[in-house]
């Protein structure tokens, strides 16, 4: 960060920070759902595809004349049902989440493209675009409704994970599924609920995405799944489950966005940016590791 603020004088402006947050919102929201699933020891490769299908449903329904509230409800339903399908397959058939969500990824992606009939759907609806709107704080910092929503969502999820029994069960599940089963936790029900809730969160991500880009494109966010996993892992959540936090994910998502944005603004060519991003991501996690080891 220090480097960026030195090399580019604009980087530390509040204006710019607001921009970085806006750029990271969709991936951060995806990563929020991903965090839940990773905490249970799972992984979700389909999250971005589900979200994109969500945007398609929203946009197409509105384009075809539906009321935007109806469209919103439909979008949330679709995402929730897809989450429930993943959750059901993982829970009932006891399949590895990697396989289930990989299958879902392929299917949902194709479904989105079939549903789109080859075009993308621009939306001008007020409700669907509302998350991209917002006002200025202190006359300078642009705060969108999407940002506020994201803060609320992260806060609620943090609360649910750390302050309710459900959250403890999620962690226990990822920690040691057999121990969780033996202690009499509803293992299946809890795991299923996580996939379902993640589906709903992806619907919010879809809404956020339309706020940022009022155009539903079946080809958008193709790296959204990896990006969200990256944010989760950089945030210190273990892919083996049971260890990590939502706050880590926020930091992880911001780190990636700041890197990208900072490097572009520093005028570095995109390929060199990639090199730098790769190195900096590793460095960030290594630094974190060293700090944590020292603090023990």
């Amino acid at each position, binding site marked *: 960060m220090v480097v960026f603020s030195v090399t580019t004088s604009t980087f530390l402006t509040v204006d710019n920070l607001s921009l970085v947050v806006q750029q990271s919102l969709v991936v951060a929201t995806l990563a929020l759902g991903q965090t839940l699933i990773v905490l249970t020891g799972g992984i979700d490769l389909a999250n971005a595809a589900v979200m994109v299908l969500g945007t398609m449903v929203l946009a197409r329904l509105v384009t075809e004349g539906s009321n935007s509230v109806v469209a919103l409800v439909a979008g949330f339903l679709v995402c929730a049902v897809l989450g429930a399908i993943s959750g059901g397959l993982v829970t009932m058939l006891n399949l590895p989440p990697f396989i289930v969500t990989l299958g879902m990824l392929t299917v949902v992606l194709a479904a989105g493209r079939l549903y789109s009939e080859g075009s993308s759907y621009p939306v001008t609806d007020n409700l669907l675009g509302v998350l991209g709107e917002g006002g200025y704080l202190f006359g300078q910092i642009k705060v969108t409704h999407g940002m506020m929503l994201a803060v609320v969502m992260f806060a609620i999820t943090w609360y649910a994970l750390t*302050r309710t029994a459900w959250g*403890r069960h999620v962690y226990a599940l990822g*920690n040691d599924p057999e*121990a*969780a089963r*033996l202690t009499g936790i*509803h293992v299946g029900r809890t795991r299923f609920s996580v996939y379902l809730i993640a589906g709903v969160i992806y619907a919010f991500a879809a809404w956020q995405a339309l706020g940022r880009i009022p155009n539903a494109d079946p080809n958008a966010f193709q790296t959204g799944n990896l990006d969200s996993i990256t944010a989760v892992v950089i945030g210190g959540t273990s892919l083996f489950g049971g260890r990590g936090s939502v706050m880590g994910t926020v930091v992880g998502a911001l780190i990636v966005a700041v890197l990208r944005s900072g490097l572009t603004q520093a005028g570095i060519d995109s390929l060199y940016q990639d090199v730098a991003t790769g190195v900096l991501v590793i460095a960030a996690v290594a630094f974190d590791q060293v700090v944590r080891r020292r603090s023990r």
Partner: protein
Amino acid sequence: MTTPALQARGLVKRYGRVTAIDGADFDLYAGEVLAVVGDNGAGKSSLIKALSGALIPDEGTILLDGSETHFHSPLDARHAGIETVHQTLALAPAMDIATNLFLGREVRRTGPLGSVFRLLDRGAMREQAQKQLDALGIETVQHIGQLVETLSGGQRQAVAVARAAMFGSRMVIMDEPTAALGVKESRQVLDLIRRIRDRGLPVVLISHDMPQVFEIADRIHVHRLGRRTAVVRPADASMSQVVSLMTGALRPGDPDAPPNLVDVSVR
């Protein structure tokens, strides 16, 4: 004879080539401490896993207060009031002591905070956890917020025992609860078992410690090669007789065997 609180007949569990339970019977009467003894690998843990819903037997029936029951999961058994200390302890390593004690039975705040917002009462849980550990004489836990994975072997076991003691409402099953405990702590667990019995709950105690078994058990269930060979009263038998029964050096029908409380002639 009264109806047993918990009864099993002809339980069988096979894992491929290995037979863990080979037609085992089991009876537990109200208000008694039943010790289950047997060699390593005799199938004691498998038996109590079947009784506590952790394992679904291939054959056989389980009867709770005389009526047939099917446990499909540990949760079913827990709902029936059966609380178990598993040999593997069943603790979540990356969570702290209080969390583990209350896992699946978390205490919520009173009032709308608890009922609407589902807010946990972390303070109360912590406090009770500390009290339970103290009652077991585990005074060396330096910090109640320590993660279970950082506890010593004995401390970990104490957490598992404390949990079962806290929540058992119908019966408590303990699989080698004192194996990793120190002298003083083992004493406390024996006291605890007595107190549970005095509350009227029957206790199943698996143990390899013969003096302990003879001190506390009302009856001793001897397990061998996946099934029950004999049940004896500590007053009727000597430790070496029981050990001989476990290893097969002595058979229940033998002239110098102690009086057997169950009929094994069927097999």
